[in-house]
């Protein structure tokens, strides 16, 4: 695990990459995109850290090797005040999975859409928008998707969303959701 490692020294970077197909793949991609940091996690798993303002350029380059965008995962790091957006890519030709990580501030969560590279990103971005409130500039279909319209803009997968109080407010009168001793409200 080297999630929090911030070594920008290129020489260190190069010596750390192993002489495998994963190492060569990372090296080739980093050579084209010097703003990104890359590492090999294990066999068939590579990882890139990319600044948010260059994410579209990087993914466009990466899409030549990594043909499929499997998912866009968002992790809410509440203490740091940041969202970590992880683009999960898969290369059919090489058989390698890539995590492309970028971090954006929670208050001003905006990213460019990657619909033009992978049309399937539309669905992933709609989901990330609904659950976390990230705005993907250029995606025309952001809005209520899986949740009910009244739940839109509550962003329930954010860490500061209080699930208990929400359930109590919505369903409190309709359902008995107290435990056996009738003291604690449970989900």
């Amino acid at each position: 695990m080297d999630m929090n490692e911030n070594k920008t020294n290129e020489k260190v970077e190069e010596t750390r990459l192993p002489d495998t197909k994963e190492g060569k793949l990372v090296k080739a991609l980093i050579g084209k995109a010097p703003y990104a940091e890359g590492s090999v996690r294990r066999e068939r798993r590579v990882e890139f850290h990319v600044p948010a303002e260059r994410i579209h350029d990087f993914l466009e380059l990466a899409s030549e090797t990594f043909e499929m965008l499997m998912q866009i995962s968002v992790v809410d790091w509440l203490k740091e005040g940041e969202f970590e957006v992880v683009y999960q890519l898969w290369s059919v030709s090489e058989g390698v999975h890539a995590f492309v990580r970028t971090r954006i501030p929670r208050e001003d969560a905006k990213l460019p859409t990657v619909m033009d590279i992978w049309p399937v990103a539309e669905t992933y971005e709609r989901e990330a928008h609904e659950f976390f409130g990230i705005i993907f500039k250029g995606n025309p279909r952001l809005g209520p998707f899986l949740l009910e319209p009244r739940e839109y803009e509550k962003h329930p997968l954010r860490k500061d969303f209080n699930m208990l109080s929400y359930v109590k407010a919505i369903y409190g009168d309709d359902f008995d959701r107290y435990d056996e001793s009738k003291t604690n409200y449970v989900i």
Partner: protein
Amino acid sequence: MTNPEVPKELREEAKGHDMYLHPIAKDTYELFFGPQHMATENFSIILKMDGNRVEKAIVNPGFLHRGFEKLAEQRPYFTNIALLLRICVPESDVPENIYSMAVDEIVGWEVPERAVWIRTTVLEMARLSAWMFWIMGFGNEIGLYTAGQWAAAYRERFMRLFEELTGGRVYHIYTVPGGVRRDIPGDRWLRQLRDTVEYIKSKMKDFDEILFDNYITFERTEGVGVMDRRFALKHAVTGPNLRATGVPYDVRKDDPYYLYPELDFEVPVLKEGDSLARVLVRRYEMEQDLYILEQLLDMGPPSGPYMVQDARLKALPRFKPPKGDAYAHVESTKGDFGAYVVSNGTHKPYRVHVRGPSQSHGVTVLEELLKGARLADVPVILKTLDNCPPDIDR
């Protein structure tokens, strides 16, 4: 609005018969397809129709959203198994396995050999019972009900085997991080499994005659819902749907896990990319799965423990993996099923994100393939994509 095609002299006669003045084929209208419709399974599509043709389709999921990813953040690692398996109803072992694989990788556990054998066998059994479930749905959609009823009966055999192994019929709560929850009941169970495999193998000929080599199937599926290789890759189409467009991508071969590197099986590929190709790829895969199960039974379960030996497992609710994250995926009958698990060192996962294959098959791909389709082809396209709404909603 009058129809210009009705000649002037006939207009007077047509008065009072609105269907002649406003033939339905000339009007566009909105049709709500589902969630009550059998083919859609808790999921609905808003179709903009021009006569019998779909002009535009807007997928409307969310009927099954139960907030599993949020709930998983509130519960200990081992409790989550009973929750996450509900993400895939016909093949509930898949979410169990991807979550367990990801947690195994974060902790760094080497799963014992016996548990690996059991997990592989359970996954293949789940695949076969999911194929039976799919035949049931697909057969019903094209009007071949007999095949569906047979398949439902054969699925029951697997359900009984699962019940004896795990205690559950549909939801097994069996694969846990570090191994499996219980050992194999005994040699009798293995004999029963072999009997079931042989029985279904003998019945494949019947399925061919009534469903896969049937004129009706060919008429209903050939040239319907065509996609090409480039479209499939850009839309993250996986599983049999991708292999029907000529891409030989199978997680069991390309990112091997469990015992699959040691097993001998082929990845069937067809090039046409239409509904018929998707149906036939599934037919060939059923044969391969039966062959894999036979090999596993010939191999026999290795002796040894079925759970990893770790002192931390004595206090399960307070079990804490180290900080880290992992992505694990397996090949399900629907496609590439993946899970991304993030641990921050506490006894609950910090984030669990599941990648269901229907997130692409059931939303963007479906909307594209339905454009221009006949209304009667909508269920055929839905079923040949093997769309499973619970993994869109989660």
